[in-house]
Structure formats: C-alpha cells, structure tokens
C-alpha cells in the first residue's frame, strides 16, 4: 500500500477520553481511498465516537478529550484536521455523515436536498440547483419515487427513503469522505439492500467508512474490515 496515493485517512496514536474513561487507546490506522471500510465490534466500544472524530462532530456534544493526530487528504493535501486551521464548516462538507436514524430536517424533500447549497449561498441560480437536486436524488435511486412530490414534507417518506434522502443530501456538498453510522440498522431488509447497492456505487466518488453490526452485510459490501475492541482498532 503506497501511503502517498492510496491513503485517504491516517490516524496516528489517536486516543479519546470521556472524562476519566478511555474510549480509544493509541490507535494507528489508515483507510484507503475509494474503498468501503467497515468498522465492527461490540456495542459501546466507541465506534460511533470514532466516526464523529473524523468530522469533529463530537465537539458539538462536548465532554470529550482527544490526543494524537487525525489526517485526511482533502483536495489532494494531507490535512491534520485538529491542528491545521481548516475551517470547520468546510471540513464537515468534505467529510459527510449519515446517521443511524434517518434525520431529515423538518422541511420539504427538495429543500432538504438543497440545504447544503443554501448554507454556502449557492442557491441564486435555481436552474443549477434543480439540476443538482435531481442528480443527487437519481444517484440515490430516489428521483423516480419522489419527483412528483418534491415539495412534500420529507418526514412523509418511508424509513428507507428518508435514509436515501439523507445520503443524497450529504452528497450535495460533494464530500470526499462519507461516514455512515449503521445506516441500515433502523430499516427493513429490502430497504437495506437498496442502500447497500447505493454504497457500492458511491465508491467511485467517495471514501466510505461504515459502522455496522451485521456481519452478513459486512461480508457483502466491505473492501476492508476493522474491529474495534477495548479501544484498539485491528485489521481483520
């Protein structure tokens, strides 16, 4: 593995604490570009925390403490996201996240997907916005299902559709990395299958890191599997 071209994310001596409790213990690992890496392991071991460390979302919840180095290659440069003065909002656009529970915002389907554009003030040219929304929805196999009710409340969609909507929304920011925290855990088998297929296609544009409990699923989709136990991350 050539670390300069293939490595998208590199963790060096990464430790994480909640109060006195050590969640992660001097982790060293690297994640390959355009691959789907799954992280497995018993619950309560900090798998989700590891994901939120990669987009610094844990800082919004607070109470934690971090040591070590997290580097992500963004726009072709290796960036130490905790030391280099990389703007937080930019980082979070480049490192998208999909949660266990689908979390559409309380607005229409269309507005949900266009939301990331609104954040960067790129909604002036509404033709372009529409094109991008359609493209993101098509990419997540959702366009045909929702094209007639784009202006309905997003919460009227089924669970699987909501989750795909959230992925489409994350894709709008053109992320280089997509973090997935058990994205199919709250869905039925059929909806999960659709999402799995979607994820394998996304590998061409993104580096995917997914936390999963389902070994079946892991076997089907993962390029790389890591197990998190007792604060250590081991290759499988």
């Amino acid at each position: 593995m050539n670390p300069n071209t293939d490595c998208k994310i590199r963790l060096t001596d990464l430790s994480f604490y909640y109060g006195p409790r050590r969640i992660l213990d001097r982790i060293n690992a690297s994640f390959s570009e355009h691959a789907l890496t799954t992280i497995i392991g018993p619950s309560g071991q900090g798998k989700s925390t590891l994901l939120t460390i990669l987009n610094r979302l844990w800082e919004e919840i607070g109470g934690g403490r971090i040591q070590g180095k997290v580097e992500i290659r963004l726009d072709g440069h290796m960036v130490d996201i905790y030391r280099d003065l990389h703007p937080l909002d930019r980082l979070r656009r480049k490192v998208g996240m999909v949660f266990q529970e689908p979390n559409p915002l309380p607005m229409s389907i269309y507005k949900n997907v266009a939301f990331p554009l609104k954040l960067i003030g790129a909604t002036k040219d509404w033709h372009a916005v529409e094109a991008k929304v359609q493209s993101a929805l098509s990419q997540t196999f959702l366009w045909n299902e929702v094209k007639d009710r784009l202006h309905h409340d997003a919460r009227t969609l089924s669970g699987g559709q909501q989750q795909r909507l959230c992925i489409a929304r994350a894709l709008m920011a053109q992320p280089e990395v997509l973090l997935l925290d058990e994205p199919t855990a709250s869905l039925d088998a059929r909806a999960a299958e659709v999402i799995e297929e979607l994820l394998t296609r996304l590998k061409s544009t993104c580096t995917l890191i997914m936390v999963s409990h389902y070994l079946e699923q892991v076997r089907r989709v993962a390029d790389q599997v890591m197990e998190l136990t007792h604060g250590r991350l081991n290759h499988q």
Partner: protein
Amino acid sequence: MRSERCMQSALAAAAWISAAAAVLIFLFMAVLGWPLLGNGDLMQVLCGPWSPMHHQYGIRPMILGTLCIASLALALAVPVSLGCAVFIQVTAPKGLGRALHHLVRLMTGIPTVVYGFVGIFLLVPLVRNLSGHGAGLSILSAGLMLSLLIAPTMILFFVQGLAAVPQSHRQAACALGATPVQQLIYVLLPQARRTLLAGVVLGLGRAMGDTLIALMLAGNSVATPQSILDPTRTLTAHIALIIAADFESPEFRTLFICALILYLMTTLAVAVMRRLAAKPVEIP
C-alpha cells in the same frame, strides 16, 4: 378505604375551589359592571372621553393608553429579548451564556415597584431633559421601563422554545457544515416559530396587566396622547386611581368595565399562547 376516598375528594375539592377562583373574579366584575353593560351605554363607555364634570365616563383614553404603552414596550423588548435568547442558546461562549441565563432568571424577581421607583428618579428626569418637553412622565418613560419588566419573561420563554428543537435536527445541519448561526436561521427559528410567537403574546399580556410602572411613570393624564412624549393613563392605573368613590356611582361602575376588559384581554392572551405553543411549556 374510606380515608382513601376522603383524601381524594379533598384533593379534588382543592382543585375545583382554586379553579372556581378564576371564574369567581370574572363573575364579580361582570355582575358589578352589569348596570352599565345592560342598559346599552356600553358603546358610550368604551368610546367616549373621560370627563366626570360633564358626566362623561368613557374609558377610550385609557384603552388607548394601555395599547400605546404595551405596544411600545413590546416593540422595544421583543428584539432585545430575541437577541438575548439567541445569545444564551447559540452565540455565547459557554460560561457567559449560562451566566446571562441565571441573571435573567433572577431579573424576574425584581419587584415592579422598584422599577417604578428607579424610573421616577432616574429615567423620568432623563427623558425630561433629553426631550425638553413636559414633565418626563410619558408613554416613552413607562414603555422603556415596562420593556425591562417583560423582557426576562419573554427571554426565558424564547430560550425554552429554542432548546425544545430536537437535537437531531441541529446535528443533521451541523454534520452538513452549518455554522451555529446558520443552524439558528434555517433550523431553530423556523422550528420554534410558534413558541416564539407565544412568548410575544405572553409578553403582551404581562405588559397590559402591569399597574405600577404605568401608574408611576406615565403621568396619568386622561387626555388622548398625541406623541410618545405625552402623558397618558392606562386601564390598570385608572382602577388604581379612583377608589374612594361611591359604590353606586357610574364613575365607580366603569372600573369594572376596565377590569373586565383587562381580564378578557389577558385571558385571550393565555388562550392564544396555549394554542401556539403546541407542547405544554413552563410559563415563566
């Protein structure tokens, strides 16, 4: 299990007697004001001028006075209160936001009469000197002080409304790179819209119901005010001012019309507020 049933009936009785208090006050006012309500003079009372010398007992100036002072106080207090709530919930550095929240809670305990007292000896001379007009006892003075009285109530309500927005919404926006202020604009404010409006209604109710500030700072003139530097009299101050009159006199009867109007206005405010705030919120 006789004691069991006794206890339960005692509790129920306490609840019903307390509830009856609200109705009793209304009925008392309605019955005592009835002679005026009943014989068709109501319009004259509501719309006429106040001039006991000419046997005119209209309360239009007081209704106007109440509306002027309350809306001025609201216009001043709403932007500041919203700003403070945003500060506490979104923009403040952690410790500072909590400190302001505590301060606001303590502010709800400042006695109205102290606001009035400080108003007379600090604010009124200031208004008098700055405007160079009249005695300084004016709609402006009362409105300014009143806005300080109602601000904490509204801030606490606003903060509750903003805090009630589900964490998952904030998190979703945050994970997409929304800054705290963007989360406020696109997620918190639209979601808390109804609660915020309810807070404004609550503030309006408080502003209309306050007596001491208007009584001490607004000058209590019964003429219809022309500008905010003119003195005026509110419904509440009107009740406070004429008390030593004969039970049967029309002058005294109008007090009950004033009280009825105040009762109905504040009840309306409560009803609207409960309608707006979908979930039950703690009324500060």
